[in-house]
């Protein structure tokens, strides 16, 4: 009903446009109505437009513009990476990346696995049908 994810200091967001596309960043300060100061363990702290951010559910406890060390410590304490990888959004992105990086041979093996699985499912279904029919 009301808003649940706020663009506040400590909010973890996903960059959805630009050079840092796909990175998880933490909002570290608000510049103005449109821009935030954003930081992450593997990037230089920089300003970014809110339009380029997709807010996540994860929020960490930091003061306004923490030092890099403090930020990293806070992220470890809140287990941002773990929470992200367990969340359905995070899991989806991991699967997408894995599928995009599949080799031609991997795709072939995947096809064989799919066919095998479908065969097993069909057999079980046939068994169940037989039981209900009899």
């Amino acid at each position, binding site marked *: 009903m009301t808003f649940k994810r706020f663009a506040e200091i400590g909010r973890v967001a996903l960059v959805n446009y630009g050079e840092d596309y796909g990175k998880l960043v933490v909002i570290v300060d608000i510049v103005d109505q449109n821009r935030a100061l954003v930081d992450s363990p593997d990037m230089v702290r920089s300003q970014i437009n809110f339009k380029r951010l997709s807010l996540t559910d994860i929020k960490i406890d930091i003061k306004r513009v923490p030092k890099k060390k403090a930020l990293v410590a806070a992220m470890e304490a809140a287990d941002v990476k773990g929470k992200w990888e367990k969340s359905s959004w995070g899991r989806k992105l991991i699967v997408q990346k894995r599928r*995009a990086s599949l080799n*031609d041979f991997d795709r*072939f093996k995947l096809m064989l696995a799919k066919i095998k699985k479908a065969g097993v499912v069909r057999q079980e279904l046939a068994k169940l049908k037989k039981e209900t029919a009899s």
Partner: protein
Amino acid sequence: MAPKQKTRNPELIPGVRKVSRSQMYHKRGLWAIKAKNGGKFPVHAKQETLAAVEEKPPKFYPADDIKKPLSNKRTAKPTKLRASVTPGTVLIILTGRFKGKRVVFLKQLTSGLLLVTGPYKVNGVPLRRVNQTYVIGTSTKVDISGVDVSKFDDKYFGKKVEKKKKKGETEFFEADKQEKNTLPAEKKDDQKAVDALLLKALEAVPDLKAYLGARFSLKAGTKPHELVF
């Protein structure tokens, strides 16, 4: 790189140098060389000029000037292989009767073409030459360290030159049909020898034989520019 050598006489403005002629003489130490050599500047002994060979006047002067083509001493290098194409790589052939077939790359021949084999038992592709441009290199590698391909070169694959026959009409039809169809037994043996070791290497990896037996094709929804090979 060697450190930049100091110029003894830098150019201050184009055409105007810093040090005068006499000062340069002193700087270069020509006075010291002369002193060492007893007042005169050392000179190399004159080399004996070889006696000029007597040229005979030509017997024939052509009426018009014949243009000589410019000399070209360039030698062609074998085509540079893409980084993805190394011996033992699985390649996807894109054109010809074997299009879509996944095939093992053996070596590059001196002409630049790639020597490739199915293996024959797996997908029907024999020892064959293929151009690099009509091939996709996948990142799947097969171990071909045991395979000996040194005897194969471009001549092995060249067309056999037939001796010219006399023009007899009946002989023409019969003889041609008989000779062209069979592959010499020697080539079949070569194929078997190369493939025997290769098949062992293939069987070591699960599903690899089936992979080579299947053809590559684009399916609905696949974006070739996003595919990782």
